[in-house]
């Protein structure tokens, strides 16, 4: 096996291996030091709890609620982000006039607004979707704004020299060169949408994985809390994986996808 192949395969072997090592050390040290499971439960206990939770249909209802909130918020945030990003990117005058406002909104810690949304939209899904969407919106919008402007000058000249219409220029050039920026924004956005949803669930309502975190915390059930956190992490990872896989299909030509493996 050559070095390049090895570099590709290696993480797939080492990552599970390292996790196993971590769990074994964790298990042994918790047992050896006799740590209270209330503070740090051993992995075996956590997985036991995870199994129990996964056997309950209410757990799956909570997973479903959280996933729906994340997906709806993410999609809404991305759509709005692309739309606003394109408009602002295309209209520098508008962008200049709203720029201070955008920066101000960007700097505001948006999770601080969650209680307000709870007052306005209640304890249901709407609040969480709005928070997830709001958090997902900014990275996409800012990336797209940059993307719209970063079309290469020479490429524009070319389109002009072959008599391309505005629509053709958009379809074959602007849209295509914008896509890597949309995906860069989406990769940040999905992570933020997950965070927004969960924090939203922490603060209001009685469904979703975030709610389960709060519930297990109130019960001081550390093993179950760990189990829920594991589920959350898995949901987040799967979401991220879906976005990056989508990127591989959508822009296989881009450097972030093909890497630098065949640059000659």
């Amino acid at each position, binding site marked *: 096996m050559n070095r390049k192949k090895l570099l590709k395969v290696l993480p797939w072997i080492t990552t599970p291996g390292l996790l196993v090592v971590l769990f074994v050390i964790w298990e042994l040290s918790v047992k050896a030091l006799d740590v209270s499971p209330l503070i740090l439960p051993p992995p075996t206990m956590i997985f036991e709890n995870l199994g129990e939770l996964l056997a309950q249909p209410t757990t799956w209802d909570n997973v479903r609620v959280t996933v729906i909130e994340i997906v709806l918020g993410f999609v809404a945030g991305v759509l709005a982000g692309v739309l606003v990003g394109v408009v602002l990117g295309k209209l520098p005058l508008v962008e200049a006039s709203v720029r201070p406002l955008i920066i101000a909104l960007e700097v505001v810690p948006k999770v601080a607004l969650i209680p307000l949304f709870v007052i306005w939209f209640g304890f249901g899904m709407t609040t969480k979707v709005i928070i997830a969407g709001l958090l997902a919106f900014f990275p996409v919008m800012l990336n797209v704004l940059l993307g719209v402007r970063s079309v290469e000058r020479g490429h524009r*000249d070319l389109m002009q*020299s*072959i008599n391309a219409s505005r629509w053709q220029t958009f379809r*074959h050039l602007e849209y295509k060169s914008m896509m890597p920026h949309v995906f860069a924004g989406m990769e940040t956005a999905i992570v933020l949408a997950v965070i927004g949803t969960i924090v939203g669930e922490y603060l209001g309502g009685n469904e979703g994985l975030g709610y389960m975190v709060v519930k297990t915390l109130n019960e001081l059930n550390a093993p179950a809390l760990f189990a829920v956190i594991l589920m959350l992490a898995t949901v987040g990872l799967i979401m991220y994986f879906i976005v990056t896989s989508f990127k591989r299909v959508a822009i296989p030509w881009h450097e972030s996808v093909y890497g630098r493996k065949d640059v*000659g």
Partner: protein
Amino acid sequence: MSMQTQPTVAMPETAAPDPSPEIRVSGLGKTYKTERGTTHALSDINLDIRKEEFVSLIGRSGCGKTTLLRIMAGLVPPTAGHVEIGGRALWHQETVDSSVIRRLGVVFQDSNLFPWYNIEDNIALPLRLRGVKKNERRDRVRELAALVGLENFLPNYPRELSGGMRQRVAIARALSDNPELLLMDEPFGALDALTREKMNMEIQRIALATRATVVFVTHDIDEAVALGDRVVHLTPRPGRIKDVVEVPLARPRGLEIKKDAAFHGLVGNLHTSLNEEDDHES
């Protein structure tokens, strides 16, 4: 200075001055207004180019050769004068005549290939925008790829090709719509010396095969003389034609031209002429 076309050794079939040149540039000027005043990029450019002629534009940087080419390519409007291609005006005030643009092919210093399309789609782009059917497009792309020697690379992506190959693709793309006039802006400027020499041979073969008229911008004297039927020497501030040199050597010209006394004489004269500018400046 008279721009009347002269019969040359290279083109015995055009024994008499062409009454209707392929391209007529008359009284062309371009000024840019900046905060610090007005810059005269080009001033009173007059140039007639006959069909199938290969004209090199040479001059130091800032002499306006690229501006002239960009005006002829329909990318920048002139502030004075006219460009006529095949008897039709290219510019109407600030707007280009798209039916005239269609008769041009442009090759830039950078290949400007779209990384999201493979070589086939890059070459076919102008045809696609014009609404040429897929089958027809495919046939034409095969033809063009064969012409530039890239028939085995059609499914590849631009990043997989060397600089010289990418420039061949750009040339094929510029030729896809059968242009009567090929405008080239330092197309080989970014290539290494050996690749460049090879591309010089290639472009001669391609120009003759397609019977295209070529305007070729370069800052390399050897290249300008080796390729051109005429070499137009531009001087900066304002950009003007200083001299038009006929190259009485038959085309295509092989590498052996570099040993030709006439070639060296012309290169030497141009060299002196370009250096005189330097003296005026200092």
